[in-house]
Structures are given as structure tokens and as C-alpha cells.
């Protein structure tokens, strides 16, 4: 295995230093370092971050290989600076058995672009009727710790209570897609003045907030861990803040698109902007940024949701929900959080690497940039403005809402266990 000497990178934006990556670990940190026969990476002016960890990725395999595969999705992850992703369970078949989660885990190992941690379904077939074999998935080779019916809400309060209780046996966490189903039947966009004008069925904030409030109370009642997926409203931030103030073990994530885009984009009727939960108001965006800055929201998660072209090239109402996120996440976080002064690079490392690893109980990722730690590393150029070109994405799908937008920076290199998956902004394999 090659040794890499990274010259002049700024760890978490601090003073530039050299990093030696050897035998899969960070072997030495300091100035003027060299190794005989080592590959030298000029990282002058680049920020060094621990490899990013996504708690919320849709890799679509098995079942929708026309949208994404484990291979293409993990390539997209590496390009985005991620060294680990959590693959959501809403595949076909659903990842609700040890067999399916082990298949996804094995596909991730074979692809080798980043580590893949499968998320297990909470209920059989995501049907919300009875618990899936959570213990079997936890004990499998995939060692599942995050369970979610994402795409659907575990709306039955009894089932949610049981799931929260049951996962305590193996230190699992239930990641809830908070969406009250009856309040959101055929919902198309954020419910507000604009949905009324556009004649698109509204997805009210209360449908998210009511579930979050209930689940926080349930988690407290049974003494378990709750993770709230993709919070999108100011009210949700308030509820999570309240639950944390109570000392309850509640964590939450926000998606990059909810930190930047607003529901005004629905006026184009272009379904590239159709996502679940929907884009919200500017006030919600503001509250989400503040919540992420003050730690109320623990992590940024992409909800990377690839869809084939025809599922987005149609009427809004007929289009699929979801947008790509892996390859643009860090740049969006820079634009919305770092360049605005809300978060420093240490904060970014916390929200995009340390804390997602901790929530997912992934011990090998999200470690500090210190000697002896696994060499998962992301080198990022925060002064590399560029325009997003959908055709240049590593993902199999093209449904990025940022096409033609200028982003402030880009990932230059990603190292997984000391080996580069991306160098000079290009995939190595």
C-alpha cells in the first residue's frame, strides 16, 4: 500500500501542516514531513477534514439500478468527500432482512469507493404493520444500528414505541421520516400562500412537527434514542431544541437543499425542485441554519435521492420526490454555513463527520485528525468557484437542483483508509 504525504493542508481550517498517511492510518502530523518513496499531495490552501459521513443516502440497489447502483452512488459519495454512507432501506426488495442488508453491505465492500452502512427497515416492507427482524439485521455482517422506514413515516404510535424500545437491546436508533400521512395525502409542496396560488396540494409544517413532538415524547418515555430525518421547518427546530433542553436523547439532521432553496422554486412547476419534505419558506431556511449552527440540529445529511430522467421530465404531480445531494453537499454547507460565518470548519467536521458517525455507532469513521486514527481524509478547496454541470456528475442520475448554479468550492481529494478514492477532483478507480 502506498504511503501519502499531504503537504500544507489546513486541518479544520487551522494552520497548515503535513499529514502522513501510512498503512491505513494517520501516521504523523507536523511540518516538513517526508517519506522515502511516498506519493506527495500538494494541499497548499486546502482544508483537511475527517472523511465525511452521510447518515441518509439512497443507493437504489437492489431494484432501481436504472437510477443508481451501489457502485455509482458510492463513486458520487467519494467525489463529494464522503468516506462512509448509510444506505436507506427503501429498495426493492426492501432492506428488512439480514439477507438484503448483507447484500448491500457486501456490494459496498466490493465497490470500494466508500464504506456502506446499510440502514434496516423498521417495519416489514415499510408497510408500517409489524416490526422487521431488527435484531437479525443488527447481528448480521452489516451490523445495522440505524433503522428507518424513510420515505414513509412510522405513523402508528404503538409500533413506533415498540421500535424505540426494541432497538435499545443493541444500541440502535430509529431514524424517523416525520410525516403525518393523513395530513399529507397527495401533498405536493410546502403548504402556504404559494401552494394556494399554484393549485398544488399543500404539505403543512404541522404534519412534520406533530410527529416529531410525539416521537420525542415517546423516546423520552421509553428511554431510547430518536433520530429525526431531514427536519425542514422552523417549528421542528424549536421542538428538537425543546427535547434537548429536557435532556432527551434526540438528534436531528438537515439536508443541504433545505439550507439553501425555498418553496418559491415550485412556481416554475419544474419537478427538479420536488422533494420530500418539500422546500420551505425563507424563514424556515433561516431557522434551520441557526439550528445547525447552535447544535440543535446535529448533522447535515444529504438525502441523496437519484431518479431517472423520465421521472422528473413530466408534470409536477406525476414526478418523483427527491434530488441528488452527495456531490454538492459540502459546497452548499460552505455557502450557507461557513461563508455566512455561522459555522467554522471544525463545526463542519462535527456536523458532517464526527456526529453522524456517533449517531450511526460507526466507530471507525468520524475520528479526529490525530496520529493513529484511521486515515479517512477529505481535502477541500474553499476557493474554487465553479458551475454545476449535471452531465459531469458521478451519479447515474442527473436530478440535481443546482444545475447552472455557481458553488464556492470543491473536493480535491478523498482518502479512505489511507488510499485515495479521489485525487485532483477525479475518481481514482
Amino acid at each position, binding site marked *: 500500500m502506498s504511503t501519502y504525504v499531504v503537504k500544507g493542508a489546513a486541518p479544520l481550517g487551522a494552520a497548515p501542516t503535513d499529514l502522513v498517511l501510512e498503512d491505513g492510518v494517520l501516521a504523523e502530523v507536523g511540518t516538513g514531513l517526508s517519506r522515502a518513496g511516498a506519493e506527495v499531495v500538494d494541499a497548499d490552501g486546502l482544508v483537511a477534514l475527517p472523511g465525511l459521513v452521510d447518515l441518509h443516502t439512497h443507493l437504489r440497489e437492489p431494484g432501481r439500478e436504472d437510477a443508481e447502483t451501489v457502485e455509482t452512488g458510492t463513486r458520487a459519495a467519494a467525489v463529494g468527500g464522503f468516506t462512509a454512507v448509510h444506505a436507506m432501506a427503501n429498495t426493492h426488495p426492501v432492506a428488512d432482512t439480514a439477507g438484503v442488508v448483507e447484500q448491500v453491505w457486501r456490494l459496498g465492500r466490493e465497490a470500494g469507493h466508500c464504506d456502506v452502512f446499510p440502514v434496516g427497515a423498521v417495519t416489514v416492507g415499510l408497510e408500517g404493520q409489524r416490526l422487521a427482524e431488527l435484531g437479525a439485521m443488527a447481528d448480521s455482517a452489516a451490523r445495522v444500528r440505524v433503522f428507518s422506514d424513510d420515505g414513509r413515516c412510522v405513523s402508528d404510535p404503538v409500533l413506533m414505541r415498540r421500535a424505540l424500545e426494541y432497538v435499545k437491546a443493541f444500541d440502535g436508533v430509529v431514524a424517523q421520516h416525520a410525516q403525518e400521512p393523513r395530513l399529507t395525502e397527495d401533498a*405536493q409542496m410546502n*403548504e*402556504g*400562500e*404559494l*401552494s*394556494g*396560488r*399554484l*393549485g*398544488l*396540494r*399543500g404539505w*403543512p409544517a404541522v404534519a412534520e412537527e406533530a410527529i416529531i413532538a410525539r416521537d420525542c415524547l415517546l423516546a423520552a418515555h421509553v428511554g431510547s434514542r430518536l433520530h429525526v430525518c431531514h427536519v425542514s421547518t422552523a417549528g421542528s427546530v424549536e421542538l428538537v431544541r425543546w427535547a434537548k433542553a429536557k435532556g432527551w436523547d434526540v438528534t436531528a439532521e438537515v439536508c443541504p437543499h433545505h439550507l439553501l432553496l425555498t418553496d418559491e422554486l415550485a412556481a*416554475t*412547476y*419544474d419537478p427538479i425542485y420536488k422533494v420530500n419534505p418539500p422546500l420551505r419558506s425563507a424563514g424556515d431556511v433561516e431557522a434551520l441554519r441557526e439550528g445547525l449552527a447552535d447544535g440543535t440540529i446535529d448533522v447535515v445529511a444529504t438525502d441523496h435521492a437519484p431518479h431517472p430522467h*423520465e421521472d422528473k*421530465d*413530466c*408534470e*409536477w*404531480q*406525476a414526478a418523483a420526490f427527491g434530488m441528488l445531494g452527495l456531490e454538492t453537499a459540502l459546497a452548499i454547507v460552505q455557502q450557507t454555513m461557513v461563508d455566512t460565518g455561522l459555522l467554522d470548519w471544525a463545526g463542519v467536521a462535527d456536523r458532517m463527520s464526527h456526529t453522524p458517525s456517533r449517531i450511526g455507532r460507526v466507530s471507525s469513521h468520524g475520528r479526529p485528525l490525530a496520529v493513529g486514527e484511521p486515515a479517512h481524509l477529505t481535502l477541500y478547496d474553499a476557493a474554487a468557484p465553479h458551475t454545476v454541470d449535471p452531465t459531469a456528475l458521478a451519479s447515474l442520475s442527473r436530478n440535481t437542483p443546482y444545475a447552472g448554479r455557481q458553488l464556492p468550492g470543491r473536493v480535491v481529494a478523498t482518502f479512505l483508509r489511507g488510499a485515495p478514492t479521489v485525487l485532483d477532483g477525479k475518481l481514482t478507480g
Partner: protein
Amino acid sequence: MNRHLLSAGDLTRADAELVLETAGEMLSLADRPIKKLPALRGRTVVNLFFEDSTRTRISFEAAAKRLSADVINFSAKGSSLSKGESLKDTSLTLEAMGADAVVVRHWASGAPHLLANAGWSRSSVVNAGDGTHEHPTQALLDAFTMWRHLGVPGSHGLDGRKVAIVGDVLHSRVARSNALLLKTLGAEVTLVGPPTLLPVGVQSWDVATSYDLDSVLPGTDVVMMLRVQQERMNASFFPTVREYSRRYGLDGRRMATLQDHAIVMHPGPMIRGMEITADVADSQRSVIVEQVTNGVAVRMAVLYLLLGGSEPALATGLTTTGLTTTGLTTTGPTGGDA
């Protein structure tokens, strides 16, 4: 005017008045033995209906035929569940056939917007009703009907006229388009219905709202009753049909509280006994049948103006070269008692 008619909100006051004025000229055709103009000879108008609506389709068909256009009716039924041929492929097909205008009715809000802006086709797009969004030609024919009864001669506006739109505003594309257009024409609109059937955020529409029909009727010049769709009746928007009728239906007793000159409108199809009683629908105040007649004239005006040529040439072209040579005269308001 724009190349497309997608939303009543896209019309400036000058645009809207031009349509009404042109519709007046078109209407005078109806009294002639030969109800046909050569204006769109050789042009192709496609009625593209993804949702059944016989009355809207035949109205557009009659309008296009009276302008001598070739008309193709294309029924592409399907829902979000059973998609059938995609909007894109249908659009590409029509483009390949050389459609000059596509009149589209669709179950999805925004479908005409997509058709006009997705780059699939170069045709003019006329929104003939999209989902729960808009139905701009219905608003134009409604405004035309109001103007014929309540307008001031010499103007095509409705300044200061009070219009109550009553019923299921939430799901009504007619109400949305009317609210936008009537505001442009200077009318004062009040949306009336149970709180469950008024859209969230309606406060920002720059119209008045009321939950109490009885308090609105004595002051209004126009009362427009909206249809209540069958599927609303089982979705808890209101308790029962009878209660809805009692609170928001227009019956003879309520009609008696209207001012003498006030008119009663309905975009059809009506549910007699639900939102409107038979005696009201058939009364002297009712202009519901007239709305249908005016619909053809207004749609003729829209097609003519969209396909007739470049913007400044339209108004002059119509009155100086087009219609006057065929001997048409303008039909103005007839006063408040027609």
C-alpha cells in the same frame, strides 16, 4: 399579449380589455347567418384533453372552427396513477404535426406551464383548466358576461363592481383565475365559503373573504356560485350536503336579498339543489346560459389574438383590416337589465 395564455394573472389590464373588446366583435357574429371568419384559415388548433370536459372542448372547438382553423381533438386520458402516454411525448407528436396552438386541459396543476416552457414545442399554449390551478378563458368569459351586464359604455373595465365567488374556492381553478382577472379589471372580489374550502394564505390574494354568505349578498353586483365536487362530500370539508346547502347554497330566499341589477353566475356544470336551486338557476337574474354563448366568443378572441400576429398589429389589425372589411360592428355593454 404573450404568446401563451397560461394564467389570468399574466394579462395586463390592456390585454384583458383587448380580449373583451375583441370578444364583443366576435359575439356579433353569432347573430349572422354565416357564423364564420377566415382569420385563422390554414392554422391548426389542437384540443389536447387529459381530462374529460365536453363543454370546454366543444366551446374551444366551435371557437376555432368559426375562425376557419383546422381543429384536431386529442383525448389523452390518464391520471397520475395510470399515466398513459407522457405529456412530453404527446407534445412532441403535436409539434411534429405542426400545431399552431394547443388548447390543453390537464388534471395536473402547471401542466400547461410545462408545455409552454419545457422546450418541447413552439405552439401557443392556451390553458383550458389545469388541476386546481387556473382556467383563464373561463375567467375571461365571466368578466365579459359581467361587463355586458354591468360595464360602463366606453370602458372595458369593471371598476368598483362587487363580485362574490361562493363555494369550494380551495379546489376551484375558476375562482383562482377570476380573482386574478377581476382584480386586474378593477372589480372588488369577495371569496365566500366555509373555512375548510378557502385556501391557506388566501389573505395575501388581495381579495376579501367571508364565511357568511347572507351578509355578503345585499352588497354585491355579481354572485358566482361554484360547483362542489362529489369527492369533497366525503372528505370532511363540511358535515353534510344539506348543511352545506343551508349555509352556502343560493336559493330563492337568498336571491331576494340581492340588489335589483345583480346577476347570478355559475361556470357549470351545476348541481341543482346543492349549491344552487333550480328556481335561481332558471331565474331572470341567471346569466348561466349566456356564459356559454359568451364562452365561444371569448375563446375566439383569445385564439385570434394569440395566433393573429405580432402584438401591436393585433388591435389595429382586427378592427381596421380584419373584421371591418367583413362588416362587423362592436357590441358594447347593454346595461344592467339584460
